[in-house]
């Protein structure tokens, strides 16, 4: 089996006395699409925030390919990569936020090109060529010189996906990418994510769109109470959940 693109082992995280992640282990193979579902407050977003180093883990290990980003020693102290090494690790993943978080003062093209040029110090002409190709792929042709406030929510989210892809990450995380969108705009964003899945881009997607999870994901992970309650083949987990909590959660969705 190939080396996992991303792996977290025995990760725990608490905010004050409130334990949000309990001994989570999750790894993703190249090309795999994992959908994380579960009730709000179940730890899904915190898992993504820990994976993307926006939050520090309290214990466990975090790695991207051969790069160990965080390790815990025998006495329980967590050590993170620092400086350039951490920056190199960060270029291995991308994160798409629920609220897009595009840079409002930059055009769509600049939003996509800025990090590759400034952070990765790549050649401007080459970056621009790739950025324009990404814009076309995301169905955003014609918005290159517009600023985010001139775009619809769906366009903004697709631009933010393009921004994340521009750094050529090995894995892309999505934190409820369509939760801020109406059904029509949700459809256009899910369409581009489907397209990425078809291209074997490795992804972890936190979502409330069950039909989408079933169609696109190779594996569904159900999280509740800071734990992975159940995981497996989407059709299996969504149609015949083994755990009572998964059943209760899904029952609310199917109505």
């Amino acid at each position, binding site marked *: 089996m190939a080396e996992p693109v991303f792996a977290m082992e025995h990760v725990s995280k608490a905010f004050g006395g409130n334990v949000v992640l309990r001994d989570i282990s999750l790894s993703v193979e190249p090309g795999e699409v994992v959908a994380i579902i579960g009730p709000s407050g179940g730890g899904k977003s915190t898992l993504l925030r820990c994976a993307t180093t926006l939050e520090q883990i309290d214990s466990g290990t975090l790695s991207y390919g051969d790069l160990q980003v965080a390790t815990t020693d025998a006495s329980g102290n967590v050590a993170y990569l620092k400086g350039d090494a951490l920056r190199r690790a960060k270029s291995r993943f991308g994160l798409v936020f629920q609220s897009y978080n595009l840079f409002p003062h930059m055009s769509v093209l600049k939003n996509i090109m800025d990090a590759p040029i400034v*952070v990765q110090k790549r050649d401007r002409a080459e970056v621009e060529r790739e950025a324009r190709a990404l814009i076309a792929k995301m169905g955003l042709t014609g918005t290159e010189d517009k600023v985010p406030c001139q775009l619809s929510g769906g366009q903004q989210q697709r631009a933010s996906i393009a921004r994340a892809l521009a750094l050529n990450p090995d894995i892309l995380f999505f934190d409820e990418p369509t939760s801020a969108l109406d059904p029509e705009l949700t459809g256009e964003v899910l369409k581009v994510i489907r397209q990425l899945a078809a291209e074997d881009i490795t992804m972890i997607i936190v979502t409330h769109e069950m039909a989408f999870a079933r169609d696109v994901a190779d594996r569904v992970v159900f999280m509740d109470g800071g734990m992975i309650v159940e995981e497996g083949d989407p059709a299996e987990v969504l149609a015949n959940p083994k755990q009572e909590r998964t059943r209760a959660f899904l029952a609310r969705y199917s109505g």
Partner: protein
Amino acid sequence: MDITTMTGMLLEGFGTTITIFALTLVGSIPLAVPIALARMSRFLPLRTLARVYISILRGTPLMLQMFAIYFAPYYVFGIELTPDSKWQACIIAFIVNYAAYFAEIYRSGIQSIPRGQYEAAEVLGYSRAQTFARIVLPQVIKRILPSMGNEVITLVKDTSLAFAIGVAEMFSTAKALVASQVSMVPFAISAVFYWVFNFLVEIIIGRVEKKLDYYHD
């Protein structure tokens, strides 16, 4: 004395007024940056120091600060005052006073940038300095422009406080002329000067605001 002569004398004083104005901005706009950063520092003593600085300089009259800075070298260190001392004290007082106001404006601007902007930059791999220069600062400038405009317009009028310490700017000249000519006309002329100058300031600020109006957030 006719109006032309008076206007000529006032114009001379106006040169000094503009010099105070310009030197204050050139000194205080950059000085406010480290003060604002200190005010937001995670290091408590530094934060407290900035807080005390801002509190005192905003909480006491600028005129009084001018006198304090003028006399302090003599009373504290026994340094002889020279004819230049008044001018130096005046400029230093204006700079440290306005830096306190600007620092608070910078701080509120920086703190108004949503956390998501910092998080997006962090995940994309920007360093802290790059995040500040490329993501935060351009947005802060747009946000603080109206408050900065307010302060700059106040500064134009505040330059008249320099008369208290004996710096011959336009208002000192106007007062002297009013007394010697037994006429209110010098006051009227100086009012026109202040207003016209501020009108130009308004136009410039308006232009910058319009330039940054290409986006909303």
